[in-house]
């Protein structure tokens, strides 16, 4: 349990007054365990602790009157620094129409997130078009249609039999109706399924979406690094959405993903309703990961 573990690290460091390098190493060892328990990737933890060692065994910590507190502050700042996006968070919707594409593994929350994004953009005065691009999963189109209806969001009624035709016709429909952006909900797929990855690559080439979001379940474990790197290498994306953050998963996968892909985490899903979407907040994520 991270809260008790960090509490233990803190207590034992506090008792020490001035810290020796050895004390700091022990503190870092405990922080390593805390990060692993939070699902941060094994290799990412290794590298991160190495970086921390440089800052943590410097003047700031060793000469502090409250070195335990200062060490934890250094860890908190380093982690937050990594998680923070380098620019203001926004969904690129420019274009006639703009195009947003949601990708990710099976069950991560893409369809629900598509509706949330349309809802979010409407609050900002943008009327988007929700487009179902999952012809594989039974009732996937109905699922998106029903959710769009319930929230009175524009939905593209498909007659086409291929994803490519749906995409092209939906874009010209949106242009005609003055709707922007087009939000493409794609089928869940494995990062190692070449046929399905090719489908994404082709759709991307055809429609040139300015915003491609990787939708990742916040309870993802060590595999987050594989998932992120493969999707980045084969398709590429410019932002991440972390879903199911209303649960109690610590979300270390978010840190791993950001660390290895350098892509910003833009949004978090906090429930099953259309308005359960929030902008990503780095400090809150750090406290969550560290407990």
């Amino acid at each position, binding site marked *: 349990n991270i809260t008790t573990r960090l509490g233990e690290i803190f207590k034992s460091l506090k008792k020490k007054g001035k810290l020796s390098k050895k004390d700091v190493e022990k503190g870092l060892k405990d922080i390593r365990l805390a990060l*692993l328990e939070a699902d941060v990737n094994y290799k990412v933890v290794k590298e991160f602790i190495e970086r921390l060692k440089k800052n943590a065994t410097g003047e700031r910590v060793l000469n502090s009157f409250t070195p335990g507190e200062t060490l934890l502050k250094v860890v908190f700042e380093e982690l937050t620094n990594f998680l923070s996006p380098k620019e203001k968070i926004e969904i690129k919707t420019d274009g006639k129409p703009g195009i947003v594409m949601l990708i990710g593994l099976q*069950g991560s929350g893409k369809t629900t997130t598509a509706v949330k994004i349309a809802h979010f953009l409407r609050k900002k005065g943008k009327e988007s078009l929700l487009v179902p691009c999952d012809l594989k999963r039974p009732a996937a189109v109905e699922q998106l249609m029903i959710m769009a209806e319930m929230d009175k969001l524009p939905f593209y009624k498909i007659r086409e039999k291929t994803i490519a035709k749906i995409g092209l016709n939906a874009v010209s429909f949106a242009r005609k109706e003055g709707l922007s952006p087009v939000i493409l909900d794609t089928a869940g797929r494995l990062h190692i399924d070449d046929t399905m990855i090719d489908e994404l690559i082709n759709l991307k080439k055809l429609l040139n979406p300015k915003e491609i979001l990787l939708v990742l379940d916040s309870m993802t474990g060590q595999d987050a690094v594989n998932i992120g790197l493969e999707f980045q290498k084969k398709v590429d994306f410019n932002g991440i959405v972390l879903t199911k953050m209303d649960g109690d998963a610590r979300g270390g996968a978010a840190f791993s993903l950001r660390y290895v892909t350098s892509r910003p985490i833009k949004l978090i899903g906090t429930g099953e309703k259309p308005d359960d979407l929030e902008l990503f907040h780095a400090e809150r994520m750090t406290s969550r990961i560290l407990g």
Partner: protein
Amino acid sequence: GIFRTKSFNESIPVFEEILLSSDVGITATNEIIKRLRESRIDYKTEEDTIHFISKILTNILDAVEEKKRETSPPYTILSVGVNGTGKTTTLVKLANHFKNKGENVLLVASDTYRPAGVEQLSIWGKMIGVDVLKSQKGQDPAAVAFDAIESAFSKNYSVVLIDTAGRLHTKKNLMEELKKVKNVLNKKRRDLPHDIFLVLDATTGQNALSQAEIFKDSLDVTGVILTKIDGTAKGGIIFAISLEVGIPVRYIGTGENVEDLIEFDPKIFVASLFE
């Protein structure tokens, strides 16, 4: 070989890395390493080490195995778990599996919450030729479960598979809703449901352990089904679940098609960790 080292002590950190990167988690990994050290076996080759490590891992899984007990029809399974893990798809695979064994199967769509949830199950039912009991929109899932058993009695279904809406284990009112479904089945007949399967996604990290603990506390889950093992995740969390919660794994989901379900085999699972 994997270890590329000669000495036993040198192989320990390599082995630790394999376990941690497979989502086994710190606590279970430490327990496994402890058992390895206590074994005091003289490892001469890498084969020896892997062979003995595999034995330790398999023993952990075997320790929670249960003999299949006799059940009177209808054999009733309740499928539960957090959102998106593959409950609905897995239930369809089970339905197909039992149908192929000659059973008279009823699928019950008691996810009345998810948009097109009932539709998803009924489309699958048509595809595999299995009857689906459809619920009304917003109908109480406990009421649907009750109707399902009544229907099973009157129409002689021998297997009843009940799907439920995904829910986070942290949502108390939703966990209460599931308890109510279980109680209604109990009241209908004391032995029902025969199995409550917690469907876990193999890509989930340590949170799967909390899910297992809370679902077990709340419903006394009888088995785990681990899905999406066809990805690159190893599903090592099941060692922690075996050690700390004591629920056996019964099936593994290996894809999105109806035949992508295998009965859990500890030896094969352990071997896959070293691939």
